């Protein structure tokens, strides 16, 4: 065995031997299961979306396909019958009627008239108020209560003695409701809040009565909501036994009915959803069942927001943080320390193993998702996209994912050497990477995300309506050029690995309970 300093190739071979052993541990660790889950989740979602769209297309096509020109000919304001006659039987038709009760607004809503058939004999006429207002106020307000005989134009109650439940004030006694006027404001009405609420008039003698007129709050100029909501009218000849002759819910409601009808047509590619309200076309939405542009934008968003910021970040945490810590826990780290290898070589071997595993899992996951996004689309469209640089997009997505593992991997490897509990540093780092977009340019260069975003082929979709803060956080200013981004990332990684090497050189075996 040659003494002296081993050559670089010998060290590289040592690192590779370490990496091959570690790869097995990283790829097949039970802990890695959720990492696979993270990497493949978007692929599953895209695949599910593709299946759902294909199923819907088949379903619509079976029910009839119309000419695209016919679909485009539909104009707002057209009647259902005309559209159906021109376009034929729709692929889908749904309708519903919505009705709502509204207070009647026609005529004099404050005055209700109640006719009873046949006329009855009565000396005492009583108005019982069970729900005094629409607004919920507990006060009954009656401006005038009129009683008429069978042929009558004469108000039998006018000026007759009236009694009732305790009035709101001395100026609003029962007599005010039989004084023949409504124009005198609140003092021209009977008001009471003392339940049971009632107003009673003595006609002087038993007379035949047939018609009652009640003038509620709005007849006297108050708000409609103060009108009586529920009441009845009772009569008696001797003032003891009363018979109910009329029950009323005030001026009442009308029902407003609106018919909504949604009709769907399909032209083999696009779906037209036509919404008719009461028989005329209110709005039309013509959308492609599968929108390639939109799906690509969604993928760009998923890649930037899910893969780069979440999956790769936490995946690398799971993989790299435990490269040393896990072996300390399992009490197997000393086997590596007792090998005739520099600690830096051990670090390199472990880093290489973590990197290969993470890059394969997340680069592969991103490409798999990309494929799942493309899959349901038209072959011609995909071919066109491919010719227009689609392959380049796939390459840069995979590269960005792999470089994400390079950067985050080094950071978590170093963190794992210095810190035992990953939660706090991970949270700090996540926050740092998150707010990086709004920091000064010099500080931005200390973030992995800054470089990764510069590598993405398509910027993430961003609504103009998104809040300013979110737009700032999601899209850092001044992206670097690709070579500069890769170089910057490599320099940053090398620096972090140098810090890790210092830690691993000083590292000592301490398995806890040994003396």
């Amino acid at each position: 065995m040659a003494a002296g300093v081993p050559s670089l190739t010998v060290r590289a071979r040592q690192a590779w031997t370490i990496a091959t052993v570690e790869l097995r541990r990283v790829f097949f660790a039970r802990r890695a299961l959720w990492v696979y889950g993270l990497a493949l989740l978007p692929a599953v979602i895209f695949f599910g979306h593709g299946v759902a769209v294909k199923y819907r297309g088949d379903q619509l096509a079976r029910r009839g396909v119309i000419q695209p020109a016919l679909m485009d000919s539909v104009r707002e304001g057209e009647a259902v019958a005309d559209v159906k006659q021109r376009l034929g039987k729709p692929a889908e038709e749904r309708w519903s009627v919505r009705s709502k009760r509204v207070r009647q607004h026609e005529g004099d809503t404050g005055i209700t008239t109640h006719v009873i058939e046949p006329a009855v004999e009565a000396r005492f006429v009583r108005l019982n108020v069970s729900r005094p207002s629409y607004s919920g106020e507990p006060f009954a307000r009656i401006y005038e209560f009129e009683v008429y005989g069978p042929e009558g134009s004469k108000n039998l109650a006018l000026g007759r003695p009236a009694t009732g439940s305790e009035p709101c004030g001395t100026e609003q006694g029962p007599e005010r409701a039989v004084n023949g006027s409504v124009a005198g404001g609140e003092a021209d009405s009977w008001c009471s809040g003392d339940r049971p609420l009632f107003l009673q008039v003595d006609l002087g003698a038993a007379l035949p009565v047939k018609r009652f007129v009640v003038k509620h709050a709005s007849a006297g100029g108050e708000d409609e909501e103060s009108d009586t909501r529920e009441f009845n009218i009772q009569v008696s000849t001797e003032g003891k036994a009363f018979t109910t002759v009329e029950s009323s819910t005030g001026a009442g409601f009308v029902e407003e009915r609106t018919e909504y009808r949604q009709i769907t047509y399909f032209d083999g590619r696009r779906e037209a959803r036509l919404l008719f309200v009461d028989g005329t076309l209110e709005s039309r939405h013509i959308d492609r069942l599968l929108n390639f542009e939109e799906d690509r934008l969604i993928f760009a968003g998923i890649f930037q927001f899910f893969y780069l910021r979440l999956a790769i970040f936490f995946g690398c945490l799971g993989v790299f943080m435990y490269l040393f810590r896990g072996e300390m826990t399992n009490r197997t780290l000393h086997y590596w320390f007792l090998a005739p290898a520099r600690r830096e070589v051990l670090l390199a071997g472990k880093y290489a193993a973590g990197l290969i595993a993470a890059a394969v899992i997340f680069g592969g996951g991103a490409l798999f998702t990309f494929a799942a996004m493309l899959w349901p689309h038209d072959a011609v469209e995909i071919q066109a996209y491919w010719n227009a640089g689609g392959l380049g997009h796939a390459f840069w997505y995979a590269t960005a994912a792999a470089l994400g593992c390079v950067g985050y991997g080094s950071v978590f490897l170093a963190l794992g050497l210095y810190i035992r509990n990953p939660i706090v540093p991970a949270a700090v780092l996540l926050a740092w990477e998150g707010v990086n977009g709004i920091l000064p340019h010099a500080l931005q260069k200390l973030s992995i995300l800054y470089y990764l975003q510069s590598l993405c082929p398509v910027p993430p979709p961003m609504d103009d309506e998104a809040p300013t803060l979110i737009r700032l956080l999601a899209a850092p200013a001044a992206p670097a050029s690709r070579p500069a981004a890769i170089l910057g990332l490599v320099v940053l990684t090398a620096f972090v690995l140098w810090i890790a090497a210092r830690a691993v050189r000083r590292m000592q075996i301490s398995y806890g309970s040994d003396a």
Partner: protein
Amino acid sequence: MTGRSADAHRPPAVVFEEVSKFYGEVLGVNRVTLNIPPGITSLVGPNGSGKTTLMNLMTGLIHPDHGRILMRGISPRDPETLMRITGYATQYDSAPRWATGFTFITTGLLLFGYGRAEAEEKAWKALERLGLTDAANRKVAAYSKGMRQRVRLAQAIAHDPDLLVLDEPLNGLDPLVRAETIDLFRAWAAAGKHVIISSHVLQEVDIISDQVVLIANGMIMAEGKIRDVRDEIEEHPSQYFVHCRDASGVAALLFGEDHVTEIRLNDDRMGMLVMTRDRERFARALGRIALDGHPIDGVVPADENVDALYEYLIGGE
């Protein structure tokens, strides 16, 4: 490297200079100075005395807080050079989950730069030496405790090192393998290698050791040839507190024994401090005195360190 020819006359040694290691506030080893020549050296001391700490320091698994260590001229901070000539069988009873006995040793050997065929051949040879060929292709995790002990030993010797550090290597070995292993140690020692083993039972190692190092509480109590160390311990007078009601009577009787060098009576006459050069004869004498009708209430060793060590190493098991 220039000093190599000058050193050639002197065999390369394992050298500790004033080495201390603390675990936080707790002392691991304190100001250890050693110079261990090649041959079989036993580190002997009770559990927790610092044997493993010394071995971890020798192999660079931990670093000293003070002092300097040189292993045959190589610093433990340079594993690339040191571990090429060193094999360390630890007491950590763990092995990677993936490994069979054979792959475990082969993988280790690949890091030495051997080709796969050569590594496998050496691994097989090491397994053969420790009688593990039948279990070679089973997972180490499924081995019995004794087999795991042996596979660690096999791993430590597989690359034929000049410097073997073996933590309690005879633990858990059956008598046949034990005898073979000891023969192995002797052969290596004869070839000028360092064989440093640890044990908490002096009897286990005293016939095979060229020298012993006695450790207690992180300090070296004695060091040297086995004969010298034993004498050193035996000549060291030990002190006992003897509690008895008739202290002056007992003291008079004890004075008649030639191994008793000094007696100091307590003021209350209820006990005394006795110094003796021979524990066993002292014990026998106390027994006789008690039988003669002088009640002895208790005997407590007053000189904890050396006495406890002696009890533990020689009297124990």
